[in-house]
């Protein structure tokens, strides 16, 4: 018998998921099933009504043309996302969506594009791309992934990072921070996709989502994460020795 339904919303799968980030949603959905829950995945497209139930919200990276196409909708659903975040709904925003969850994106020629402001970060357009594999330490142990961004992100004074870079560029290649975390809202530049190879982080998100969905604490099943652990520890060994 199912331990309960969990509603997962993927924001803009068409416009903002070009680097395999849909893999995060599929992997979390599969993990929910394997833990004994029933996932209900909603693909939210620009202009559509935001799903009534949302216990976990995900978003990915896109090209500039994709970002431009979701801005109006993101502004429209912004109040709902803010309310969900305040209620503890876990959110995982990768790359382009991470930038849009920040205060603003400042283009190379100085134009300021406002973001949702759920994370207290500001991103500056940059002629140089930061590309390569990443290892960082987080509250969920070592997390591995792959970054590919030209935006350079700075955290405001009180904003917590998601991780400390052990190998790679992270937010800006200078201050050693990667991503941002406020409550259960996470922003990060890591593709990979990030969820499959980092199951401890994956299950942490589920542990935040399940009580909102079912009213009871997350009761994980027995999952075999041998492949994920091997894949991750081998990347860590290759990159930081």
């Amino acid at each position, binding site marked *: 018998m199912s331990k309960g339904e969990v509603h997962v919303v993927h924001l803009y799968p068409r416009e903002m998921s070009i680097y395999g980030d849909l893999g995060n949603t599929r992997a979390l959905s599969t993990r929910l099933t394997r833990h004994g829950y029933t996932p209900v995945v909603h693909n939210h497209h620009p202009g559509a009504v935001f799903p009534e139930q949302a216990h976990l919200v995900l978003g990915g990276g896109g090209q*500039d043309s994709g970002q431009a196409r979701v801005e109006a909708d993101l502004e429209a659903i912004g109040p709902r996302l803010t309310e969900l975040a305040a209620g503890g709904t876990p959110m995982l925003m990768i790359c382009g969506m991470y930038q849009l969850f920040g205060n603003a994106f400042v283009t190379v020629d100085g134009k300021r594009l406002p973001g949702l402001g759920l994370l207290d970060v500001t991103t500056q357009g940059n002629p140089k791309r930061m590309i390569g594999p990443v290892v960082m330490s987080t509250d969920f142990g070592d997390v591995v992934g*792959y970054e590919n961004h030209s935006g350079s992100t700075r955290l405001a004074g009180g904003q917590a990072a998601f991780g400390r870079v052990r190998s790679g560029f992270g937010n800006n290649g200078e201050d050693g921070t990667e991503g941002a975390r406020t409550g259960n809202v996470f922003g990060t530049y890591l593709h990979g996709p990030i969820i499959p190879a980092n199951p401890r982080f994956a299950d942490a998100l589920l542990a935040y989502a399940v009580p909102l969905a079912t009213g009871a604490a997350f009761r994980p099943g027995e999952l075999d994460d041998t492949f994920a652990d091997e*894949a991750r520890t081998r990347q860590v060994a290759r990159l930081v020795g």
Partner: protein
Amino acid sequence: MPAMSMPNWMEPLVPDRVRMPRPAALRGQSVAGDRRSTFAAGLRAVRTSAAIAAGKAARAAAKRRGGGSALPGLVAERMDPGILGHALGSLPGGNVVVTGTNGKTTTTRMLVALLRAHGRTVFTNPTGSNFTRGVISALLGEIGVRGRLSADTAVLELDEAHALKFAAAVTPTHALLLNVARDQLDRFAEIDHTAGLLADLAARTSTGVVLNRDDSFVARIEGTLADSVRIGRFGLDASIADRLGELQEQDTRADDDFVVSPPDADDVLLRPRDERRFDIVVGPDGSGGLVGPVELKQRGLAAMINATAATAMARQLLGATFDAGVAATALAGVTAPFGRGEVIDIDGTPLELVLVKNPAGFTVALSTYGTTPVATMIAINDNYADGRDVSWLYDVSFESLRSAGVALTSGVRAYDMALRLQYDDVPVAAVEPDLGAALDRFLAGHVGVPTRIFCTYTAMMTLRRILAARYDLPAFGEEGG
């Protein structure tokens, strides 16, 4: 170490500077003003000859070392940047650029075979060295020191960026634009950018452009072209239109969803009969003529589409002299390029090596290869030539492997591949990152059973080298990369 052919998009390893003696003819010359233009023309010819001689010498040296590299092309290019235009700019049958993300090598090979079967003398860059200096290296073997090429048509495979670089040196008379897919984001960063490169190339083409009507990035180029340029189109017949989804990248540049327009009477369309045989028809009802049935040596839907693209361009180039029977025979005789559905005989049992490098290619390979029962191994490396980011594996569906399972995953990212399969509920019997050990285990465990290895570029190079040493295979450098 055996010479290795370059992957399409990898910079050849060449020294920053190649020191060549300055030709005596260029030293200490001074001339009177009235003779300057004659002298300039003379100097031009001398420089070209000197560049060709130097390039030929470098080419001979490279051959002695057992390599077919782009270095000779670099030598000649440094000495005379005009060498390409000189040799290729005025061929009577024109010069054709074949470009796009997937299928360049196969399509070029097929187009060359089609033209040669119709009696054309064709120059091409067969080593898969699809940078401009690779073209020059190939040229050096075929031209006299005056820079004249005896061929009447050139067919050149160029990657998207180098196609434009080439067009800056020589105006292409024809361009065949295959597709735009995510590939090597490390290098091109965004597919919108790649689409822009192809549009620029088409704009610089003088006579005729053949477009993939099913690919929104390519099909949309048609609206930007001058009326004087002849447009040809190729694509899928309505009978297999349901396969479009797996072949298409999401185009987020425009408000409207891309809808493939109904085919014109002159569009060249692929109509498969079964897994191996197909017809190429002209116009929606096939009324404009028919090539086929054709059975290619190379397997898979991708190869059938490449054959359709090559036929569309051959038809445009040959006009009334195009002969459907000659075309069918020519296509059937084309051998698979290195690693594109190549079949190796392992003591009487076939082993297929299938190169995978991006989501569209892997998805098509799985769906066209997946129906015959075989044992499967998947080898994933993440070197520069493979694509360092393995995220793309999550944009491929592996469900077709679920019932048979995968015998082994291998390569540097063997565990990441096993993890990916695990999320699609595909059983993985074993993981062995070492390619040699994995190959031994795979073949030993499947004696007498047909086998297939999907592999990224550098994994394929390693596996091919091991197999070449054991079985009688053509050496590296004889085939395109």
